[in-house]
């Protein structure tokens, strides 16, 4: 009897993996092969995205495919490349070695991609070469002797165009044929660069050499020392304009819709604990999660499109020097800028930073970028305590203070990043960024990317936010106030008691117990602190009316030192559980989240302390 072929084994699924350089079109090939049948998660223990998909060949062979992170070589320099190397070598802790590798190379960049392919050839694993972007190479005036190259390399070469379904048909057919034998490795000690040069000289004719390409014409503008930054500013302006302008109506509509739905669903229930739990705990929590979604999706639509088009690395090039001030690289700019809208999409956008240290530092300082949820608190306190007058003739003092709050936050972020990026890892930290050719973004890839972000946010981050919201609801509601109580209900609750206890810690920075109590529900989202203050002062007003009623009350009851101290506190404090939840999700480390919380609370306390005592000394208050 013949030895069993793979198809007769219990698990007849063929395990393959896509391997290739960054920008070889590997991911769009993966998307074409699998469509929506993909699972996105992380590799065990690291923050490297693991993409696995399933498809079957025309003859019905079922295939499981792993989209390995792009790599330039097997001698890895980053956690992404570690994964690729370990899986290819069969050394990975949790992944089995693939039965077949698809070596993806772009015909437009053979010089770089063939070298990595030759490295893969040494592994002794069967390889099929997917020669991608043949259409573009032809348009550029290149022709490749595929049969000759195939014989020379000892691996089957399948030309593919990963941009459309028909373009990957030849690869699907090739996967129906028996798995090829592993290629013979090159003679040991061979110079891979010399080998690549020989292969290109023998099998590739490039009539475009010396001609100007699209990338040259576009880079002349996009990388221009003057026009480059101008174009970038326009792109960023339009980007954030749409994030705010398009997301706001959607967010308002969603918020209204959820409130209405909640009322509709809960109408049959009697007033009481259960109704309050469902309305203020579960539905309000879920609403908060869903309300973030439009902003995240619009921002990611931009980021994915900019990334796919090849513009994002150019933006990183232009901004590198600026970000080097903070010890980071240009890649950190967009995540940090997004954090001014909200740290949640900002932290998620840090995925585009390949360097793990830069990514971590970016995530850690993102909460210092003043997000839009701080504005209601700032507006309330500035309105109540900063006189409405002009200084130096033209500048409004209130506007000036608001500007100062933003500026202080940015400067602190830069300083914090500088401190985090020096020390142990002070060795030179390279940019070495590939500037890929410009490409039109593929709609299917964009749609899939957005879908994955949405699912990830709703399922992973959403569950944490909803459960914490329920927990905070419990703290603020229990125990219930005694019969005939006169004060605010929250004052009798656990949160109220904790607030009173917190006073011993917070009195030195000028907070009264009302502030302390309102900080607890304020953890849900910063802006909630305003309505919580209204509740504590037992104003019994709706959320929208809270600021107007609070304004005169606060300015008469608080000292200016207390108000400024609270402002300083808000610049730094990680007063947002959703941000910590998304940080936990993106870094997969509770230690990092606790560290971030500690450093931000520490900074907040220190800043508030300094501001409180300075103001007291200046105003001469007791």
């Amino acid at each position, binding site marked *: 009897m013949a030895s069993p072929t793979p198809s007769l084994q219990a698990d007849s699924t063929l395990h393959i993996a896509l391997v290739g350089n960054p920008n070889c079109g590997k991911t769009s090939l993966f998307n074409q092969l699998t469509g929506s049948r993909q699972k996105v998660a992380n590799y065990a223990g690291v923050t490297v995205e693991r993409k696995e998909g399933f498809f079957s060949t025309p003859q019905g062979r079922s295939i499981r495919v792993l989209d390995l992170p792009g790599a330039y070589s097997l001698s890895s320099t980053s956690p992404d490349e570690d994964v690729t190397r370990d899986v290819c070598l069969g050394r990975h802790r949790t992944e089995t070695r693939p039965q077949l590798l698809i070596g993806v190379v772009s015909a*437009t*960049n*053979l010089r*770089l991609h063939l070298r990595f392919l030759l490295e893969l050839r040494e592994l002794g694993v069967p390889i099929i070469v997917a020669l991608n972007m043949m259409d573009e190479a032809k348009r550029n005036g290149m022709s490749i002797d595929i049969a000759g190259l195939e014989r020379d390399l000892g691996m089957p070469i399948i030309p593919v165009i990963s941009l459309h379904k028909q373009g990957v048909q030849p690869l699907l057919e090739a996967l129906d044929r028996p798995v090829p034998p592993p290629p013979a490795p090159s003679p040991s000690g061979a110079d891979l660069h010399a080998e690549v040069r020989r292969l290109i000289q023998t099998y590739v004719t490039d009539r475009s050499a010396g001609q100007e390409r699209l*990338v040259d014409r576009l*880079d002349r503008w996009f*990388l221009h020392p003057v026009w480059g930054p101008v174009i970038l500013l326009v792109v960023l302006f339009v980007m954030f304009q749409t994030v705010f302008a398009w997301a706001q109506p959607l967010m308002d509509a969603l918020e209204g819709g959820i409130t209405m739905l909640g009322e509709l669903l809960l109408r049959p229930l009697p007033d009481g604990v259960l109704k309050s739990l469902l309305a203020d705990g579960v539905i309000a929590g879920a609403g908060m999660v869903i309300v973030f979604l439009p902003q995240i999706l619009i921002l990611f639509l931009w980021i994915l499109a900019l990334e796919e088009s090849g513009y994002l690395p150019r933006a990183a090039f232009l901004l*590198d020097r600026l970000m080097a001030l903070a010890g980071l690289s240009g890649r950190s700019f967009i995540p940090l800028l997004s954090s001014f809208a909200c740290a949640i999409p900002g932290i998620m956008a840090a995925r585009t930073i390949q360097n793990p240290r830069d990514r971590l530092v970016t995530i850690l300082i993102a909460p210092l970028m003043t997000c839009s949820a701080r504005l209601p608190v700032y507006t309330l306190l500035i309105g109540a305590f900063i006189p409405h007058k002009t200084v130096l003739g033209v500048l409004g003092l209130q506007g000036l203070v608001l500007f100062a709050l933003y500026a202080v936050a940015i400067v602190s972020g830069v300083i914090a990043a500088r401190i985090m990026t020096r020390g142990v890892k002070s060795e030179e930290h390279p*940019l070495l960024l590939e500037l890929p050719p410009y490409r039109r973004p593929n709609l299917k890839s964009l749609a899939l990317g957005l879908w994955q972000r949405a699912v990830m946010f709703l399922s992973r981050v959403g569950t944490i936010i909803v459960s914490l919201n329920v927990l905070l609801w419990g703290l603020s509601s229990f125990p219930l106030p005694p019969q005939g109580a006169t004060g605010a209900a929250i004052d009798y609750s656990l949160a109220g008691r904790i607030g009173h206890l917190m006073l011993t810690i917070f009195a030195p920075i000028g907070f009264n117990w009302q502030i302390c109590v309102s900080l607890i529900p304020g953890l849900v989202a910063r802006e909630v602190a305003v309505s919580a203050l209204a509740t504590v002062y037992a104003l019994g007003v709706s959320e929208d009316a809270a600021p107007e009623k609070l304004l005169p009350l606060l300015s008469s009851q608080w000292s200016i030192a207390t108000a400024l101290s609270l402002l300083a506190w808000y610049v730094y404090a990680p007063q947002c559980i959703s941000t910590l939840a998304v940080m936990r999700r993106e870094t997969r480390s509770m230690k990092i989240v606790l560290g971030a919380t500690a450093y931000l609370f520490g900074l907040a306390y220190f800043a508030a302390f300094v501001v409180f005592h300075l103001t007291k000394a200046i105003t001469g208050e007791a």
Partner: protein
Amino acid sequence: MWYLDTLPKGNYAIIDRVEERTAADPISARLCELGFVPGESVKIVATGPVGADPIAVTLGTSRFALRKGEAARIVLRRPV
């Protein structure tokens, strides 16, 4: 000695060798893997808006952004 970080924009040159700043310099090793190897021709296509740093270099069919410190590891010679 003539290094890539001093090559004027728009001019071609040939890579002579890549120097190591430290023993087993990981940056030099990565430069080699990216194709910065002796005999290849390079051209600077753009320089950053501040202090002309970083620089954008074409190398065969690829292009890379390098900081000046990275480019200063690459020794050049004149094209023949």
